C-alpha cells in the first residue's frame, strides 16, 4: 500500500516538475521575445513547416468533416422536420469547435511530432550545445520562432478549415440532399455571429501556443539517443493532444457559456 502511494507521489512530483520546467521555458521565451535579435528567417521557416505544409491534411480533414456533418445532421434532423437548420449546425460546429480542435490535433500530430523530433535530435547530437558555444541563445533561435509560428498559423489554418468545411456542408446539402441553396445560405449566415468565429480563432491561438511549448519542451529536454528522441516525440504528441482537448472544454466554458 505504502509503496503504491510512494509511486503515485513520485509520479505526481515528476509531472509537477515537468509542468514547472515547461512553464519556465515558456516564460524565458516570452522574456527573450522582446530582446533583439529577432530571427525572422526562422519564424518564416517554421510558419512554412507548421502552417503551409499542414494545409493539405487540414483541408482534407475539414472537408470530410463538413460533408459528414451535413449528411448526419440532415438524416437526424429530418426525423423532426428541422432539415433547414443543417447549414446553421454545420457553420456553428465548425467555427466554434471542430475547425480549431481538428486543426489543433492535426498540427500536433504532424508538425508537433516533427518539432519534437528535430529538436530532440539536435539535443542528442549536441547541436543545441553548439548553438550556445557560438554565443547564440537556443531558446531565442529555436523556440521563439516555433511559438510565433504556432500562434500565427493555427488561426490561419482554422480559417481554411472553417471555410472548406462549410463549403463541403453546402455542397452535400445542396447537390446531394437537394436543400434549397438560398435557405441554406441564409440559415448559415443568420445565426452565425462574429463571436463564434473569433472565439474559435482564439481557441486556435491557444492550441498553437500549447503545441509549440509542449513539443519544444519535450524536444529540448530529450535524453538518451534515438530511443529518447522516439519517446520525446510520442510524449509531445500525446500531451499536446490531451492538453488541446482539456483546454478546449475550459475555453468553451469561458467563451461560449451564455
Amino acid at each position, binding site marked *: 500500500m505504502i509503496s503504491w502511494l510512494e509511486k503515485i507521489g513520485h509520479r505526481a512530483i515528476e509531472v509537477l516538475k515537468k509542468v514547472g520546467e515547461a512553464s519556465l521555458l515558456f516564460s524565458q521565451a516570452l522574456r527573450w521575445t522582446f530582446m533583439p535579435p529577432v530571427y525572422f528567417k526562422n519564424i518564416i521557416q517554421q510558419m512554412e513547416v507548421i502552417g503551409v505544409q499542414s494545409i493539405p491534411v487540414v483541408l482534407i480533414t475539414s472537408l470530410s468533416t463538413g460533408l459528414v456533418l451535413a449528411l448526419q445532421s440532415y438524416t437526424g434532423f429530418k426525423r423532426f422536420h428541422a432539415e433547414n437548420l443543417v447549414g446553421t449546425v454545420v457553420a456553428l460546429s465548425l467555427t466554434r469547435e471542430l475547425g480549431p480542435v481538428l486543426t489543433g490535433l492535426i498540427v500536433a500530430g504532424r508538425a508537433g511530432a516533427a518539432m519534437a523530433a528535430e529538436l530532440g535530435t539536435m539535443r542528442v547530437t549536441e547541436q543545441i550545445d*553548439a548553438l*550556445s558555444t*557560438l554565443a547564440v541563445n537556443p531558446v531565442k533561435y529555436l523556440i521563439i520562432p516555433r511559438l510565433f509560428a504556432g500562434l500565427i498559423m493555427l488561426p490561419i489554418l482554422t480559417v481554411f478549415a472553417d471555410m472548406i468545411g462549410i463549403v463541403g456542408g453546402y455542397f452535400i446539402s445542396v447537390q446531394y440532399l437537394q436543400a434549397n441553396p438560398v435557405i441554406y445560405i441564409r440559415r448559415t449566415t443568420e445565426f452565425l455571429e462574429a463571436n463564434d468565429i473569433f472565439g474559435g480563432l482564439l481557441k486556435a491561438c491557444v492550441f498553437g501556443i500549447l503545441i509549440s511549448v509542449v513539443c519544444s519542451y519535450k524536444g529540448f529536454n530529450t535524453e538518451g539517443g534515438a530511443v529518447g528522441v522516439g519517446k520525446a516525440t510520442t510524449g509531445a504528441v500525446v500531451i499536446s493532444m490531451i492538453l488541446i482537448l482539456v483546454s478546449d472544454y475550459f475555453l468553451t466554458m469561458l467563451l461560449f457559456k451564455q
Partner: protein
Amino acid sequence: MIEVVDIHKSFNSHHVLSGVNLTIEKGESMVVLGGSGTGKSVLLKIIMGLLKPDQGTILIDGTEIIHLREEKLNEIRKKFGMLFQGAALFDSLSVWENVGFGLMEHTSLSKAEIRNRVTEKLAMVGLKNIEDKMPSELSGGMKKRVGLARAIAMNPEIILYDEPTTGLDPIMADVINELIIKLKHEIHATSVAITHDMTSAFKIGDRLALLYQGVIHRIGTPEEFKHSEDPVVRQFVTGSSVGPITAG
C-alpha cells in the same frame, strides 16, 4: 587564463566531480585525461558555461562565469571555440553556413566576406570546395574538420576539444592532431582537450591532467607522465586492465 576552482557536480546521487581544481595558462595546451564516465565532458561543459556546477567556480581571464546572466555569458563565449566529439554540425545548414554561423550572428561582415573567411578557415583545416555541401554528405573525418573550422572561425582565444580523435581511423586521428598543433602555432589560442587517446594527448598537450575519482589526480608534462611511477598514471598510460583503475 582559465581557472577551475573546487568544482563539484552530481547527477541524481552520482557524484561525478568532487572538487576539481585546475589552472590553464594563456596560450597553453592542456589535455585532460580520464576513463569513460569520469566526468571529462561534464568538466568541459562547465568550463564553457553549458552546465552549472553544484559548487565551485570558473574564472575566464579573471571573470567569474558561473553566476553570469545569459547575455554576459554570451560575451565571454565569443572568446571560445569548441570542437564537439560528433562535430555537432547543424544538419539543416550547409558547410559554409555552419562555419560562418558565428560570423553571421556576431559581425556586420557581408555574405561575400563571410564566404571568403569560411573558405580561408576550411583551407586551414585542409578542406577545399565543400562550402555548398550539406553535413550529411561528409565523412566522419571531414565533419570533424568542418567542426574545427567552425570552432576557429571567430579567431577564438580559447579552443575546447571534446574527444577530438574519437571515432576516427589512426591516420585521420593524426591529421586532426597535426591540425590542433598547427592551429596552436598559427592562432596562439589557449586550448583544453579532453581525451583518453594517449597518442593524441602526448602529441598535442603541453601539460596533461588525469581526472580520476572526481578530482585531478595528477598534472604534469607528457614526459613526466611517460615516466611516472604513480600506479594510476602508469595504468592509464600503458592502458593496462590491471591496476587501481577498475572498469565501469
